[in-house]
């Protein structure tokens, strides 16, 4: 898993800014492929799940199901303010609970949206943390 983690990207009701920044990481300027990260073709091959968005009611159901299907051990990275604590949507009627009450989260990357450099730095820190633990 550490040599080349396969990342799976899922958006639970976000404004898509964080999603575009994650995709920007895959384009030639930032290019996380040099760290060995590839986009997983399906959830069954995923090592890391990147979650964006403030979980609204419809998406929380799907996220739970997706997390159950992922092979363990599976890391969850919360990207952007909305997935940290719902940010400004804390009083919204459609976003009842923050992300870490639905699935366990291993790393948090703040920002609205976090720049691609911040996302890469967060991902690298996560890998270092796991290597340190092993």
């Amino acid at each position, binding site marked *: 898993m550490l040599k080349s983690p396969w990342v799976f990207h899922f958006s639970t009701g976000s404004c898509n*800014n964080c999603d575009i920044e994650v995709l920007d990481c895959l384009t030639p*300027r930032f290019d996380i492929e040099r760290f060995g990260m590839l986009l997983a073709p399906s959830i069954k091959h995923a090592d890391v799940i990147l979650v964006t968005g403030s979980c609204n009611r419809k998406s929380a159901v799907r996220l739970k199901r997706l997390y159950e299907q992922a092979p363990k051990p599976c890391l969850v990275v919360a990207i952007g303010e909305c997935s940290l604590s719902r940010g400004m949507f804390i009083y919204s009627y459609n976003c009842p609970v923050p992300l870490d009450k639905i699935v366990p989260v291993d790393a948090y990357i703040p920002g609205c949206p976090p720049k691609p450099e911040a996302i890469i730095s967060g991902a690298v820190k996560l890998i270092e943390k796991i290597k340190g633990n092993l």
Partner: protein
Amino acid sequence: MAKSVIPIGPYHPLQEEPEFFRLTVDGETVVDIDVNIGYNHRGIEKLSERKTFDQSTFVIERICGICSTSHPFAYTRAVEDIIPVEVPPRAKYIRTIIAEGERIHSHLLWLGLAGHFLGYNTVYMWVWKLREEILDVMEILSGNRNNYAMFKPGGVRRDINPDDIPSAVKKIDSIIPTLNRLKKAIVDDPVLHVRLKGIGILTKEDAIDYCALGPTSRASGVAKDVRKDAPYGAYDQIDWDMIVAENGDVFDKVVVRVLEVFESIKIMKTCLKNLPEGEIDLNIADIPPGEGIGAHEAPRGETFHYVRSDGTNRPARHKVRAPTFMNLPTCNSTVIGETISDAAIILASIDPCYCCTERIAVRNEKGKKIYSGKDLIRLSQQKTEIIKRKMRIK
């Protein structure tokens, strides 16, 4: 073009259920489509009633990330319409510059994704690299790549430093040669002509009946654009053209967007060079009771905001209507009757929020799922390969 297989893509692999677009097929033809939305519903209209008029601008910016300027632009125009009042000229020009910069980056993003759906992965990578240059320009002018936070009711929040303008103009000029090559490659490519012409036609009558907006309706011959019909900002002081096409198929939608990028570059450079001096903010103290309506031509169509004020410092009601709300139902008339290998590109040509087009499922008449969204994209790429091969043999 050299064959380069890029093993990664921008899309989310399909989740199991529920689906956004549920297509029912009979053999190879689509016979029914059902659209299921609500995955991004965060209750922003209710949230806006808790915030003051000024704080609401920050919430509104985060409705959509790709067109993050068009919602604050329409909202601030709606609040200014309650009084009603006009902002100073320098604020109008700055607003126009930011709005056009966003239009360029949004259309380039869409072009990259369309290239990926058709199997032109090199185009996808090129165009997104080009898009980074525009994001650098926006960072020079406003300080951020995405959520610019430049708008407030009464003007703009921050000024553009005149020392930054030459480097911004230089960066914009640096992408024009590549864009010209791209335009030639797209408009003259015979494979794209065969692949995209006559596919997913939205007739003019249907475009009017569904009240479609933006490039989706301009490609069908409906010559409506808020920047020309109800001019605001600096649009009536600059010479630019509205791009309209006649046939309403996917090829025309691509051409309309490509040509709009050039018009936006023209508007942006003219505004940067002729920025008038003066105030940037009216410093509005109180909003009187009343109603106001503001509209702005976002990259996808007209954004419409309706704000009602009851004299306090919070809106009594704020209605937001994004352009995709009116454009998505048109897929009922464009996709039904087409083959499944074209379904992915037809749905993408409306330019919805990009994650919508990936959550597709195709069922046969008994209701059994036979294809996923990823399969549809693969079918679409295969069709392009087949056409390319046929034309080389000729």
